[in-house]
């Protein structure tokens, strides 16, 4: 298939449809409103349903209801909107409901601004909603990868019966790039959820989807079932990219859009004869702790770059286990660092 120029948000929407998503519920918020707009036009063309909701709170609960029927469902939002969805995300995780969320992160906290940022890393990877749960969190750094990871997100959500999250940012959502879309998934080949989905109790015992049990021993059992699912995901689904790390003395750690900028920094440094590489987690949960630890045995130092106050830095530290020094550079509030700026900061750290 030929490549086409598409905006990030719209590319995610098209990828979702090709992955078999026919139900989208959403509420406009900058910088991702083109995604619901795209779905409102596109879904009726493929016999799907688009509904503009009254709020993000209603959105996540419509997603909950539609996911209960076993269908592939999706929503997208941006930071303050995702905060509003946290209640429902926690319910869906506990009720073991597959769904795909897209958070096109903007500057925060609070109302913040509408520029790209990475301040929702903790919310995405460490919780945000109440209780013990995890989300599969995928962090694309190009529009093509956003397309590929959207399809993967649906498949993983279905496989493990858990919500999955595409953690993008305003830059990825708004940029246009040439992408290649996958073929349309034949809906009849999608995973069969007839063993738990709410489809009408015809000729069988009723199915109950629940995030609740009044008996603590039963609820603990439900919790432990989730723990087992999360262990499986940690075992099977860790994804990351390494760039020029084979002989690197310094490894930049970064995810998403900033990782893409950091790649340019690696090339600039290499031109100057500095052995710099890049380690980019693709799944920020489950986090690629082990591959990063392996690098810690080989390199001299790490240089973590983020567009937040150092949220992923904590995971980098957990992986590196104090074996090597870790320096940190960031811009916040929706400010995107330039390659030169990051390179200058790196050179300053190593006295060059």
């Amino acid at each position, binding site marked *: 298939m030929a490549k086409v120029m598409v905006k990030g948000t719209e590319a995610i929407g098209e990828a979702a449809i090709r992955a078999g998503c026919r139900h989208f519920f959403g509420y406009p918020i900058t910088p991702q409103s083109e995604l619901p707009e795209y779905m409102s036009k596109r879904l009726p063309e493929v016999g799907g349903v688009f509904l503009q909701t009254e709020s993000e709170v209603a959105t996540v609960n419509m997603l909950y*209801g539609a996911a*209960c029927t076993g269908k592939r469902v999706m929503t997208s939002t941006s930071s303050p909107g995702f905060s509003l969805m946290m209640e429902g995300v926690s319910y869906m995780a506990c009720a073991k409901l597959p769904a795909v969320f897209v958070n096109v992160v903007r500057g925060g906290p609070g109302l913040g601004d509408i520029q790209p940022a990475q301040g929702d890393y903790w919310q995405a990877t460490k919780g945000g909603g109440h209780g013990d749960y995890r989300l599969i969190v995928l962090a694309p750094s190009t529009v093509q990868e956003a397309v590929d990871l959207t399809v993967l997100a649906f498949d993983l959500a279905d496989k493990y019966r858990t919500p999955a999250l595409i953690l993008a940012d305003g830059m990825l959502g708004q940029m246009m790039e040439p992408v290649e879309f996958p073929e349309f998934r034949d809906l009849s080949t999608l995973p069969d959820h007839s063993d738990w989905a709410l489809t009408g*109790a015809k*000729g069988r015992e*009723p199915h109950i989807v629940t995030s609740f049990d009044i008996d603590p021993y039963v609820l603990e059992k439900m919790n432990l079932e989730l723990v087992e699912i999360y262990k499986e995901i940690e075992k099977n689904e860790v994804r990351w990219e390494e760039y020029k790390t084979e002989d690197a003395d310094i490894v930049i750690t970064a995810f998403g859009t900033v990782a893409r900028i950091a790649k340019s920094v690696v090339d600039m440094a290499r031109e100057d004869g500095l052995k710099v590489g890049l380690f980019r987690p693709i799944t920020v949960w489950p986090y690629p702790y082990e591959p990063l630890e392996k690098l810690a045995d080989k390199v001299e130092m790490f240089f973590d770059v983020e567009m937040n106050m150092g949220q992923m830095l904590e995971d980098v530290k957990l992986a590196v286990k104090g074996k090597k020094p870790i320096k940190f550079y960031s811009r916040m509030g929706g400010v995107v660092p330039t390659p030169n700026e990051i390179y200058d900061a790196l050179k300053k750290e190593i006295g060059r």
Partner: protein
Amino acid sequence: MRKVLYKMPESLTGKEFTYCPGCHHGIIHRLVAEVIDELGIREKTLVVAPIGCSVFAYQFFNMDGTIAPHGRAPAVATGMKRARPDLYVFTYQGDGDLAAIGTAEIMHAANRGEKITTIFVNNAIYGMTGGQMAPTTLLGMKSTTTPYGRKAENDGYPMHMCEFLKEARGVAYLARTKVNTPQDVEKTKKAIKKAFLAQVKGIGFGMVEVLSTCPTNWGIDPISANKWLEENMIPEYPLGVFVDKVGDEK
């Protein structure tokens, strides 16, 4: 040969209700189940249980179901219905759930004409959390958070959900009933049937508000509670059919 006059509806599991003595939830559950049986739609119906005393509704109704987060049942039901328009979906909600935390969801589901059915049980108080003020608590009525009686200047006025919702153009059937006498039980059953028929016929949103007692949190015995409902709730919440686009059954 003996004739069976009364039996457990197929739409109930037969699991013992968890409601307090004198509470009307049990009667209302049974009416909903009888209506679903009579319409022959049990195998195509999904129940959305709320939070509060009726949180266990999913265990009592013999059909596929889930429990919605606080107040969000109409949104959950919307998602279900949009994903499976061939199924019938109903929410069962109390006054705290529907008239406080979930006001936005019920208003918008009704206004969209969402083809779902809502059973709204109004007992003028928060039951499961232990008798706090509800949006429907009467002026002057004591609760654990209005120990001096509800005062309009501090706590606002009782919420009249039927009166608010009747303006929403997506509503196909809307009525307020009670179940404290046998005659009222019959009338409520007819109303519930119409609210379901509004969905079965694809006309729009249907809701029945059933006035109900809470002897435990009102602090009176069940018989006095029935009398209290009659004397105090009826003047505030007049019974009636507010919207009926379903028409009479042939």
